């Protein structure tokens, strides 16, 4: 067993956390609504809370085993933790914060101190006090501090949720870079579908203390039932979105665009800084797709894809969701008015053109909270 493996049960009042999971290399996203037990789970992995029963082990080493009375203190676990608020030490400069863990664990970390400073863009901040950092800067320092403590696993607990959407987009690329450049398993907790879509290799949905689903990000998060669980109430119904996996085909730097393949179709996006062949997940909102019954000329919308209607469902309030299939595995959902649907005489099996008005990497286009 190379990664994390745990099976724990814990009660706090009426709430019961009962989770069994494994996390290997790459980014494991844990998503769920507030109160699902996500933070409690992370605290138990880090050793900041003690599970009432069950065991936690990493790479074969037992970190916690209630039955045998084993409980390794957090300082001995070598598990990095990035909290929701950066929690930098206010009486130390940025560089003192960065070196806090390194001084105690040795500096033989996953990558060198200079590389981490460069990766997170901290060069100009080193002498500053946390007091004088913006939220995004502080969170980057916190990530650097955790990485420099020589961790073998990194836990990130909603690291972006205390930032405004603009800062959030500023920091996402840094976290993606970590993911691509470090050979460090990461457990990334969030209640934000866009963040998980963008960052995670696989996802675990946590709801009311239990694992509701686990597996491939698009497969799990495209299930309406899962969206319902994560978003609570029926806000998922309000603005449904499909996660699709596309691949980078080519960049046109002069035009400032990147071409992606989405199954048989091609999409054009504002220039992405991703290598050719890379998989990127897109989250395309149903409201951003219009439908035409014939290919259109002379229109500013660039992404027009030929599709087949597979299903039409009424969502009430005079609107219908039209499921469009590009191939066996690639689907989109368009939300149009009932009136438009009737006028165009949309029926399953019909060939239509999907006009995608807006498409961007998950979490770049908008924030969904």
């Amino acid at each position, binding site marked *: 067993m190379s990664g994390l493996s745990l099976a724990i049960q814990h009660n706090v009042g009426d709430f019961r956390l009962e989770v069994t999971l494994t996390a290997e290399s790459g980014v494991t996203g844990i998503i769920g609504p507030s109160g699902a037990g996500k933070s409690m789970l992370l605290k138990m992995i880090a050793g900041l809370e003690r599970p009432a029963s069950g065991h936690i082990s990493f790479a074969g080493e037992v970190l916690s085993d209630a039955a045998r009375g084993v409980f390794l203190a957090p300082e001995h676990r070598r598990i*990095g933790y990035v*909290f929701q608020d950066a929690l930098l030490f*206010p009486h130390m400069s940025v560089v003192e914060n960065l070196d806090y863990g390194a001084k105690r664990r040795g500096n033989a970390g996953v990558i060198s101190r200079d590389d981490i400073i460069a990766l997170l863009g901290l060069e100009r901040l080193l002498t500053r006090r946390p007091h004088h950092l913006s939220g995004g800067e502080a969170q980057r320092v916190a990530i650097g501090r955790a990485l420099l403590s020589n961790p073998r696993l990194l836990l990130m607990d909603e690291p972006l949720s205390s930032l405004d959407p603009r800062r959030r987009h500023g920091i996402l690329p840094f976290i993606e870079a970590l993911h691509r450049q470090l050979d460090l398993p990461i457990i990334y907790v969030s209640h934000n579908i866009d963040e998980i879509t963008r960052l995670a290799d696989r996802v675990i949905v946590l709801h009311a203390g239990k694992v509701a689903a686990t597996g491939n990000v698009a497969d799990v998060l495209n299930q309406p039932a899962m969206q319902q669980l994560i978003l609570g109430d029926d806000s998922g119904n309000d603005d449904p979105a499909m996660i699709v996996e596309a691949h980078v085909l080519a960049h046109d730097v002069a035009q400032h665009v990147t071409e992606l393949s989405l199954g048989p179709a091609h999409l054009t996006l504002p220039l992405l800084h991703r290598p050719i062949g890379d998989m990127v997940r897109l989250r395309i909102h149903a409201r951003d797709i219009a439908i035409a019954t014939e290919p259109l000329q002379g229109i500013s919308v660039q992404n027009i894809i030929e599709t087949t209607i597979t299903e039409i469902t009424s969502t009430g309030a005079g609107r219908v969701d039209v499921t469009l299939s590009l191939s066996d595995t690639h689907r989109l959902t368009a939300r149009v008015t009932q009136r438009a649907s009737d006028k165009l005489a949309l029926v399953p099996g019909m060939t239509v053109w999907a006009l995608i008005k807006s498409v961007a990497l998950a979490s770049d286009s908008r924030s969904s909270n």
Partner: protein
Amino acid sequence: MSDAVFSLSLSPGEVQALWLSLKTGVVGTALSLGPGIAIAWVLARKNFPGKFWLDGLVYLPLVLPPVVTGYVLLLVFGHNGPIGHWLETQLGFVLAFNWKGAALASAVMGFPLMVRAIRLAFEAVDPKLEAAARTLGARRFDVFLSVTLPLITPGIIAGALLAFARALGEFGATITFVANIPGETQTLPIALYSALQLPDGDIHAMRFVILSLVLAAAALAGSEYLARAAQTRIRGQA
């Protein structure tokens, strides 16, 4: 009033009283710092049966008549008191009727103020900061020294200065416990009180009043300066 009131040269009696006040105040405050930090930490961070009673016991000197506190000290630490007797016979250490007893009395009287200030400082430290330090590899005591202690320094300074200021004004418990012995236990307020008992003591008394004022103002200014310096160290230069 005559110029004698404002004369800058201090009489031997005045020097003695001033010196005694400073000595008992500094020693009493210094000795209560350790226990003060420990008890403030326990009260701020721990829950245990009997916390309510410990809390009450610590604050008791604040609400009891000082004479009662002094009398209890005399019963416990006097020649025939259980602890006083033990200290005297085992270690040859006498507290009754000397300046060490005065220091103890001022320490006890200032203790609640000190604990209160430090406890508030502990409560203002986010426990999540300490948790973060532990995930970075610091053991509990290391976390205390490297994170908690630096962050509560302004509170410790404030608490120590409060206790010191309280010690300078200490009268009731001191005079009850160690009496009024010039050169041994006669601190500024007690000297002032003694001067008032004399038929022609007005000028002497006024000089003690001025001395007390100067000392109190200096202590306040010192605490303000130290607190600002500590605050700057934590927050960094603006």
